[in-house]
């Protein structure tokens, strides 16, 4: 914030520096955060390392603090806004002549975690790409319109939640049908290239560094018939998606009758319960769509602790899973996924 208060604990390699930066973004100290990164730039730290090892890593910690309910959602948002300012400061201080080609970078529809993607966009720019960054939650038709209007050489799509995979798939197919190859990444696309291959993406990257490297070799790929991978999912997926609101409403009604003591008109309670139920159905649908049980298992592993940290015990989650499961008797794959999910919950 000021010369008097900002004391740098050494270099980027010093773990104290990360904590220092986390404090700055957590306190909403924009000036301090921007000053920290500009000082690193002055010390000739490569901008890529600042973006990945400092800003990106700090953002990861912020996410964990939110998941553990240590930080409120408001603080997480505020911290993210500060990180974005710091990133913008790094970007403003570095300029590179575009030598590679034009790339469109976007978050998949419904995806709001834009910071990692913004980091990717800046990394690509530093690597010599001409980058069009479309930001968070880009609807498929917007993306395709942009592709037709600007004619990029490649589209990079990111998503952190697997529930967006069906919509991401539609965007991937549309870009490829327009003759533009697609590289995907982000936690939502899984820990390896398996989901990406099923969705017909031309490449998958583990992180921003990997994406930059991947685009320098064997690129561009030959695009085969884009409709070979245009259809995924089966009748179970179709049923779960079409009956989403019925599944949630029925589960809510049964849950309410099981706990008559709870006032039915408590909107916040109803909203958050319906939201949790909705998540179960959405992840179930995503697992059915991609045809990979790992999506649902990972969801249960992730959501259990998040809910537990907010005072929702494992039995409540198990009850939710069973209430959805009991409505899906005729759908063996869905029942299998939900049973496997229940089995993962702690006793």
């Amino acid at each position: 914030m000021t010369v008097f208060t900002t004391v740098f604990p050494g270099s980027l390699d010093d773990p104290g520096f990360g904590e220092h930066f986390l404090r700055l973004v957590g306190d909403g100290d924009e000036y301090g955060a921007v000053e920290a990164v500009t000082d690193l730039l002055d010390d000739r730290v490569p901008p890529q390392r600042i973006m990945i090892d400092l800003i990106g890593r700090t953002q990861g910690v912020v996410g964990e603090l939110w998941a553990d309910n240590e930080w409120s959602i408001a603080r997480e948002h505020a911290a993210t806004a500060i990180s974005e300012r710091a990133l913008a400061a790094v970007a403003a201080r570095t300029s590179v002549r575009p030598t590679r080609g034009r790339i469109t970078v976007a978050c998949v529809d419904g995806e709001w975690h834009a910071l990692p993607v913004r980091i990717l966009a800046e990394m690509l720019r530093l690597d010599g790409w001409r980058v069009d960054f479309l930001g968070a939650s880009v609807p498929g038709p917007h993306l395709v319109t942009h592709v037709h209007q600007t004619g990029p050489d490649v589209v990079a799509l990111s998503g952190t939640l697997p529930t967006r995979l069906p919509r991401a798939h539609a965007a991937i197919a549309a870009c490829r049908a327009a003759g533009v190859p697609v590289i995907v990444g982000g936690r939502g696309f899984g820990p390896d290239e398996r989901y990406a291959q099923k969705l017909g993406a031309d490449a998958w990257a583990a992180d921003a560094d990997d994406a930059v490297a991947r685009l320098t070799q064997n690129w561009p790929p030959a695009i085969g018939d884009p409709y070979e991978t245009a259809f995924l999912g089966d009748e179970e997926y179709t049923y779960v998606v079409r009956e989403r609101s019925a599944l949630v409403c029925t589960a809510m009604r049964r849950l309410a009758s099981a706990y008559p003591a709870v006032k039915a008109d408590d909107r916040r309670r109803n909203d958050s319960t319906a939201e949790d139920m909705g998540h179960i159905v959405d992840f179930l649908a995503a697992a059915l769509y991609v045809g990979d049980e790992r999506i649902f298992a990972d969801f249960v592993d992730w959501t259990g602790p998040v809910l537990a940290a907010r005072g929702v015990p494992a039995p409540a989650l198990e009850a939710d899973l069973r209430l959805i499961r009991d409505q899906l008797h005729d759908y063996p794959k869905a029942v299998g996924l939900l049973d496997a999910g229940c089995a993962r919950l702690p006793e």
Partner: protein
Amino acid sequence: MTSHMPVRTGEMAGETKTPAAVPPPYGLLSAALDASTEAVVVCTYTDHTILLVNAAARALAPGLEPGGTVLLTPLAELTRALTEDRETFTGEYDGKQVHGRRRKLDDEHYALYLRDCTEEFARAAALNAERARTAFLAEAGRRLSASLHQGRCLRTTVELAVSHLADAAVVVLPARRRQSEWMRLVAGGAITEGMLRENLLGEVPGLVEALGGFPPIPSRWLDPSQAPAWLLPEGFGPIGALLVTPLPGNAEPAGALILARSGTQAEFTQQDEILARIFAARAGGAISAAGLYREQVDTTAILQADLLPPELPQPDGVELIGSYQAATETLRIGGDFYDVFGPTTQSSDTVIALGDVCGKGPEAAVLTGKVRQTLRALRLVEASPAEMLNVLNQALLQSGRQHRFVTLVVGSICRIDHGRVRLTLASGGHPPPLVLRNDGTVEEVPTSGTLIGVVPQISVRPATVELASGELCLLYSDGLTEARGGGTGNEHYGEARLRDALGTCRGMSAAAGVERVRRLVSDWVKGGMRDDIAMLAVRAPSRTPLSLRGGGAPAGSPFAIDARRGERRQRPRL
């Protein structure tokens, strides 16, 4: 092969149960063979000496004579088959395709049965060529129709041309402002592009004619040696054959496709020229469609530039953030709008407006443009927000277009002491703005009024609110509260949820707060946005402490202090 087997000839005769018939005389056998349409050659195993050649074989392969050896015939494939001990072969003999099979007659002799399959071969080759052409044209159709971007269409055109038609391909577009755009690909190389002065086009044989819409000139009339050196890169070497084909467009050529083959023997056959012409028709269609699209997009961009949400000024001591989401998928304009008019020479106030025109899409957007322009003018005459609404009402009524009404909130912002901000707001039938206080409570601004553009006399009740440092006022359109979604998928987001959502934005910057509300609503509707949503937030910034105050101790934002209280939230659950 069989020569290693024990000799069994004598035994076979001995084993025969039926009485041995008298063998037919040689002349008879030979006559019978000559009468056969299949070519037969009988040879010995030991040195492949030819013993007998029937009439059909003599006609098919004139070099084969009894006494000679089949190892020394012009039929190279036969010799190879014999040395490799293969039973069948196919090869060329005297311009004919000959298929042969070998049969063992006895331990010392074998026969070759030969067949002329030249026609069969030609038919198969023609079929394959036809299939390749069809596949090529299908691929061309698919890839060329994929993109509406002209650059990508040109790229696809040269890529396809080089993969199937020639060693190098150049697309040249008609000259615009005395410059021609071109794109080139040489097999094994990378795509290059550039501009060409119009007066150079005449140096390429046939190019001016192709671009001028004249019928294509056959390749044999184009002298490749006349092609200028700049046409292809140096490494390409001398051009063997040149073909310049017009790319048909919208009643005038969309460009010309120049194909080149290297090597002195190279040529473009008539088949090649026909294929190139069909391909050029598809490429031309795609390129001209992309050009048309480009024109439309450029025009739309110019027309909608004034209708897009404006870049907001950032007056001192006030945070202003707008957010706009259009319901229409491709056009980012609609019936919601907001605008901000900065201080003028007469007034230091900043004037804001957010509203909603009845209807959606471009039609509604045009009216928002008029409303914004009217407000901009009114702002210059220092009208109060309520007066601005009154005049706007008159203006809309007099414009004569029926059923065009608008709801909006107009406000003027001024800074007062201690970093506080005063807002005077007037509503014309619009949802009242919400104020987020520092303690997390959310209040409604008590302003109300008649909607604008319907009745001659409107009533407007303006209201004044003051924002302390860190407090925020949100103007929004009803697309926000009427967004349908939630558990049932058909429930309005509603004002209660909006208030809750805003309550969680305590301590956030205006940008982060607006982003958060946007995100919560998007999660609510799960992406199925059916209405325009506009938001405009005014916030009195958190006070930045003077650097030397408090001995330089980090003061942080009020929010940060809040956050340090350890805000562990319980999730309300059934």
